[in-house]
């Protein structure tokens, strides 16, 4: 077995303020999940190693923080919602017990109080008949309900930051709409900061204030959602928006980006999108391209799209 080192994420900088929702958009393998997991040191190590950088939560650096500190922060101040609720919930424990455990891990309250709090949480995420549902096992709930339970669990300790990794991808549209509305209410009511990872522009446009677009482990564009969607500056962002069919346009041929995203072990020199880009010039494949910031927007491209 040889030792190979893959750079999954390279030099990503993100920030989110209380009450703000930041959308992270990218295709599979673009490093968006690894970025999210790195925040609380959840990347399995070995093999994953954070080779540089800092994560500051209220000014305190979490990378390299002692395990106990991270453990106290995780789930209490910074909580995660994952894509697959079946994998997050333990199949052999009742959902109420799992919720109570999440609360009691961080707060010393009695089992009875924890149970009451769990019922309130299930009500908050609009699970009908929460008092009876609390004693169900995860397999008895539908996908939408299970995802609501994992959101309830993320909210259990009233965190300041929620990192949601494709929380609605596996759900039906009507359930997705309910969950998005719920997250939106929470950030407005409680000043919750949300980092929302997705590949769906529709979802981002409805929920997020700012977005960051990732490609091959780096941020290629960043800015306020409306501005980026209206006039994308990076060719990748523009092409990606064109790929996504939008409801209400009838039968048509879709725009596609030829080629495949690069493999992390074979990143090209320079801009990783250059081999698939129609505007690529020889300079694109030479050296590092910086993330140029102008005002609220930033783009990593030598030939940015003209603003219309």
């Amino acid at each position, binding site marked *: 077995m040889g030792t190979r080192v893959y750079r999954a994420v390279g030099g990503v900088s993100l920030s989110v303020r209380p009450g703000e929702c930041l959308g992270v958009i990218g*295709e*599979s393998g673009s490093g968006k999940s690894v970025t999210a997991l790195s925040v609380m040191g959840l990347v399995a190590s070995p093999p994953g190693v954070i080779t540089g950088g800092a994560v500051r939560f209220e000014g305190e650096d979490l990378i390299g923080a002692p395990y106990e500190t991270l453990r106290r922060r995780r789930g209490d101040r910074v909580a995660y919602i994952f894509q697959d609720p079946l994998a997050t919930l333990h199949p052999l424990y009742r959902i109420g017990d799992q919720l109570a455990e999440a609360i009691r891990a961080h707060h010393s309250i009695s089992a009875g109080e924890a149970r009451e709090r769990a019922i309130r949480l299930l009500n908050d995420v*609009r*699970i*009908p008949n929460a008092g009876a549902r609390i004693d169900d096992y995860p397999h008895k709930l*539908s*996908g*939408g*309900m299970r995802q*609501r339970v994992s959101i309830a669990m993320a909210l259990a300790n009233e965190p300041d930051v929620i990192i949601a990794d494709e929380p609605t991808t596996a759900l*039906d*549209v*009507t*359930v*997705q*709409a*309910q969950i*998005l*509305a*719920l997250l*939106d209410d929470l950030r407005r009511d409680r000043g919750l900061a949300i980092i929302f990872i997705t*590949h*769906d*522009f*529709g*979802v981002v*446009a*409805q*929920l997020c204030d700012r977005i960051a677009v990732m490609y091959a482990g780096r941020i290629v564009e960043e800015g306020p959602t409306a501005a980026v*969607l209206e006039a994308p500056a990076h060719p990748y962002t523009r*092409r*990606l928006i064109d*790929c*996504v*069919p*939008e*409801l*209400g*346009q*009838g*039968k*048509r*041929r*879709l*725009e*596609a*980006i*030829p080629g*495949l*995203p690069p493999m992390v072990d074979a990143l090209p020199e320079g801009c990783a999108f250059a081999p698939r880009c129609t505007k690529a010039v020889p300079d694109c494949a030479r050296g590092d391209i910086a993330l140029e910031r102008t005002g609220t927007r930033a783009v990593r491209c030598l030939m940015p799209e003209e603003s219309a």
Partner: protein
Amino acid sequence: MPALNVDHLSKTVAQKKPLLRSAPPGVRAVQLMSFAVEKGETLGIVGESGCGKSTLARMLVGLLEPSAGHIEIAGRALNTADPAAFGRLIQYVFQDPISSLNPRKTIRQIMGAPLRHLYRMPAAERQTRIAEIFASVNLRDDFLDRYPHEFSGGQAHRIGIARALAASPEIIVLDEPVSALDVSVQAQVLNQLADLKRQFGLTYLFITHDLAVVEAVSDRIMVLYFGSVVEMGRAEQIFARPRHPYTRLLAESAPVVGRALKAPEQKGSELPDPLNPPPGCAFAGRCPLATDLCRREIPELRSMGDDQLAACHHLIPG
């Protein structure tokens, strides 16, 4: 003559009989579905999880036996006695491309199976045919001697499509063909499907839960709810001018750039319980227009003119 004709198709799944009591009534996964698909048409089938879309698809390709009703393909009744005869007419592309390919066989063996079993084609002929099919889906020949795990989702998907094409069917059932793919790859696969359809004169049944995708690829769309057809109509009309409140709910729930976020539905309303189905319209419990009539009587699918059909007592004016 339609390519596919489905008449009063139903599937009831029996429940386990308790020791001392009689067996409870079965779960009705698909209820009295009737529709026809013309040759060369793409029929989109949408609905949320549990609405019976996969059960319907499995019955169409003969993987499940219907409890009642008839399926006719190209004028002939679906006859499970000779699977090979129907394998040549209708093929299925599975949702998960990797797990639908046998991990212990090379792509060449996988591709050869339909030719060998359905057409009894000799080995030399099989190789030329496989090469032809691979060329038409833009896959390289050197993939043929590899194993399924060596491919990305998009490539495995194309192999699944190639395998379905190998049988030279008239109809291909595509079950969530792009939901596992990235958006940039999704567009490639969808465009390729459109090209293949034109090239081979295929008829598609396109099952998905993504409304924008189904609208972009279909001629007509059928909306399912709780095992029944609630609305059917032309792709460009059905979400723009829905007549059934459920179709409207779906259209309003789809995230669209530039539309403000609001919960289109109040309170956590869930699908009706299949073990204890409501007596009237299955959607009544979630419907803002529901009246007593809806809770009592199941509405029938009626024609609205303009190729649109809907099953509702209180249609939204078109």
